[in-house]
């Protein structure tokens, strides 16, 4: 397949660096966990393991099957520059990513469950929300933006307008073209999105916990949580670790074939003339329909639940009507103290550093992945993604706690290990069909290896890198499970400070925290988005082959 035009030594160097970093961040902590499971295994199969495993895998499959098509459809629709209010919709569909899962679960019950918005206003509520169907739907809504992001950046990074034009002029309508050409060409990215969604769902905890538990719906992660919570009993700890290792094995069994068998087949090289260009003009009626559908989707999946969240943050207590008479800023006062300001600075710095390093790491593996050994590395990165935060944190403590316990460095390592795949998959999806000749051409034009990447590879990959960065930054910013296990004096993150001040489960302050983080993130994110649009605007305005 395609090889980046660099000397064999440098390529080997990249692969070696990736493998070493993987060993440090992923391999060794996983090994320590596996050793605990192997050495201390009490020899009893955990009760309900089969059911929990089945629930987990079926759930992840069902979520992937629904979330990826939704994400692809969103990416196709939002790609249109002539879509009215496009920037607004692009932001709106990403909103669920800004909210910690645990609050998202609550905001859905507040919107659609008994005594929620729809029940109060229309007398309609959805009993199934607290159960497998609800878990599935909310996870789909939560994962769709992720799939959208991965597919959208890939489409932006290698738009090949002539290939779509060729289909249209051959008689294919817009929808047929999307299916037979656009999506087919974006398959590596679609597959990347699928793997990412699948693995994230395998490892998802808060939503199955909040919405699934009332119906007795157990997954491996909620089982792990239960085992960790129940007493300092060493056997339950080992059981939790064992479950986590089982989850990792399941993930490896599911994603490794996808990576090793599927990826090379999906790969195809981008022709040299690929360049971003405006999509074909659409009929106003179609645009209106798409806008309407988008509005409905965004309203139901993000608007209403997030309105519930916003109201929860300013309503003085859970259960009182969210009317102005009951509004108060107490929750914000809880969140915005001098202590939290300090922690906020720390969290922002941590998220910035983590996201930046993660983009570098993601790129590293994406480049190394073009070699056979690198593909194994790519699979490895997904394994930490699936680990519940608590178990990964335990693995890191086992591996490095002796020296790094309680330091920000250990938290940073945890973020890097956990989110590596989140950064890697979108970048790999975009890099996949980057034509090696373009880099070779830069090299023979006198550019060094780094200059070649910077001047030739980076501009077309910029949307993917930005998307990956944003994703990592957001996730790191409101991460709570790992940092609440790893922090020490002077390394409390924002989420730790806010959640420690109350018992976990207090909705108001957590909602206020989400609102504060959303505002804090929306501002730079908006700026970044604006900058990226400015950046790519000149290329977009001069369509293919004016001449």
């Amino acid at each position: 397949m395609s090889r980046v035009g660099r000397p064999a030594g440098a390529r080997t160097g990249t692969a070696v660096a990736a493998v070493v970093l993987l060993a440090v961040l992923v391999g060794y902590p996983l090994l320590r966990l596996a050793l605990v499971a192997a050495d201390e295994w009490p020899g009893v199969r955990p009760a309900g393991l089969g059911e929990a495993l089945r629930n987990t895998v079926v759930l992840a499959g069902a979520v992937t099957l629904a979330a990826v098509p939704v994400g692809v459809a969103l990416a196709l629709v939002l790609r249109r520059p002539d879509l009215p209010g496009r920037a607004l919709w692009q932001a709106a569909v990403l909103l669920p990513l800004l909210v910690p899962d645990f609050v998202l679960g609550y905001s859905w019950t507040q919107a659609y469950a008994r005594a929620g918005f729809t029940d109060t206003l229309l007398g309609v509520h959805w009993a199934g929300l607290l159960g497998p169907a609800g878990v599935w739907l909310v996870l789909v809504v939560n994962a769709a933006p992720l799939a959208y992001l991965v597919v959208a950046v890939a489409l932006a990074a290698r738009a090949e307008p002539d290939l779509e034009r060729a289909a249209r002029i051959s008689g294919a309508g817009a929808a047929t073209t999307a299916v037979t050409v656009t999506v087919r060409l974006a398959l590596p990215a679609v597959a990347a999105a699928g793997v990412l969604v699948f693995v994230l769902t395998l490892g998802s905890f808060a939503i199955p916990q909040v919405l699934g538990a009332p119906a007795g719906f157990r997954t491996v992660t909620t089982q792990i949580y239960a085992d960790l919570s129940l007493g300092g009993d060493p056997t339950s700890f080992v059981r939790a670790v064992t479950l986590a290792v089982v989850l990792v094995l399941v993930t490896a069994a599911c994603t490794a074939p996808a990576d090793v068998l599927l990826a090379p087949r999906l790969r195809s090289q981008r022709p040299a003339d690929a360049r971003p260009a405006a999509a074909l003009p659409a009929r106003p009626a179609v645009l209106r329909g798409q806008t309407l559908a988008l509005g409905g989707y965004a309203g139901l999946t993000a608007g209403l639940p997030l309105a519930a969240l916003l109201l929860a943050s300013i309503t003085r207590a859970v259960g009182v009507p969210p009317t102005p008479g009951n509004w108060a800023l107490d929750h914000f006062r809880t969140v915005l103290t001098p202590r939290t300001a300090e922690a906020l600075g720390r969290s922002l710095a941590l998220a910035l550093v983590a996201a930046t390093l993660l983009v570098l790491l993601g790129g590293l593996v994406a480049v190394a992945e073009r070699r056979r050994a690198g593909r194994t590395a790519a699979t490895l990165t997904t394994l930490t993604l699936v680990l519940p935060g608590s178990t990964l944190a335990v693995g890191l403590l086992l591996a490095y706690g002796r020296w790094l316990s309680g330091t920000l460095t250990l938290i940073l390592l945890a973020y890097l290990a956990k989110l590596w795949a989140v950064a890697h998959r979108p970048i790999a999806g975009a890099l996949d069909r980057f034509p090696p000749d373009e880099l070779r051409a830069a090299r023979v034009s006198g550019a060094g290896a780094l200059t070649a990447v910077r001047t030739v590879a980076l501009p077309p990959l910029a949307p993917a890198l930005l998307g990956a960065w944003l994703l990592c930054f957001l996730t790191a910013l409101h991460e709570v499970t790992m940092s609440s296990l790893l922090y020490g004096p002077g390394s409390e993150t924002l989420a730790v400070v806010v959640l420690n001040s109350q018992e976990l489960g207090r909705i108001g302050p957590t909602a206020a925290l989400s609102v504060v983080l959303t505002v804090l993130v929306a501002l730079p994110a908006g700026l970044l988005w604006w900058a990226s649009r400015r950046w790519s605007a000149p290329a977009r305005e001069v369509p293919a082959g004016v001449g």
Partner: protein
Amino acid sequence: MSAEPAVEVTDLVVHHGTTAALRGVSLQVLPGEVLALLGPSGSGKSTLLHAVAGFLEPTSGVVRLGGRTVSGAGRPVPPERRDLAVVFQNYALWPHLTALDTVAYPARRRGESRAQARAEGRALLGRLHVAHLADRRPAELSGGEQQRVGLARALARRPAVYLFDEPTAHLDTHVRGVFLEELASRRRESGAAAVYATHDAEEALGLADRVALLDAGRLVQVGTPEQVYAQPVDAFAARLTGPASVIDAPDGSGELLVRLGWARLGGPLEGKVRGSWFRGPHTDHLVDTPLGELLIRESGGACRPVGERIRWTLLHGWSLPGHDGRG
């Protein structure tokens, strides 16, 4: 045969952002005609084709195909419902489809069965002598092979109008033969036409029934190849259509276009060799004359040393209309 022009654009204006790519172009392509769009890169050739194909919406102006308005009044007709085929610059072959599936694609979209579409595709590939490549994907095809598959896909569409968007390589003799033959047979039944965008004068003149010269989004001249070659409207048009020397008219009446072959060595006029290139059947000499620099082609011949004094005769010249500042 239809009485309407196969393609008719009227006052076509296209803006890309703030820059104007087409500044009011009006043009007709008659049924059965091959029109070459000749212009330097950036002159608006692709933009014009894209507007005709429906890949972009013109800022203003009208596009009509076979008398039917497809852009400019009411809802624009989408590309798939314009009776067109396009051969793209780099052929735009889908990387995931084999040559056969690529060529069968248009027939499939017409609703033909898979087997029938493939049979037709196989026949087309055969006509272009690439039937043996049916199962290959674009990455496994040479440039020339890609061109043939790209053309086969266009032929499979059986359109009223073919658009060639500056194919990167010249159509080779066989491909050109198949294409012109196809055009001729389609002309009898439905009046198929073609628009061929290129920046290569030789190809445009050799292929087209008429040539349209395009510069900076405006039409400079439209005419038969002979007209645009022998009677260009200005120096720009002259240089665009082939090797051209522009000298002062000996009678002082203005500028004179002298093509290769319009002057010969020996005769009353004087000059000095500035450069000399042996090209096999003939030799080209760049000559400094009192009237200006002139390229003279000598049949046979050999290189002459720079500075050699020679004499020459002006056989024919075309008086260029007043200088319009285009240079």
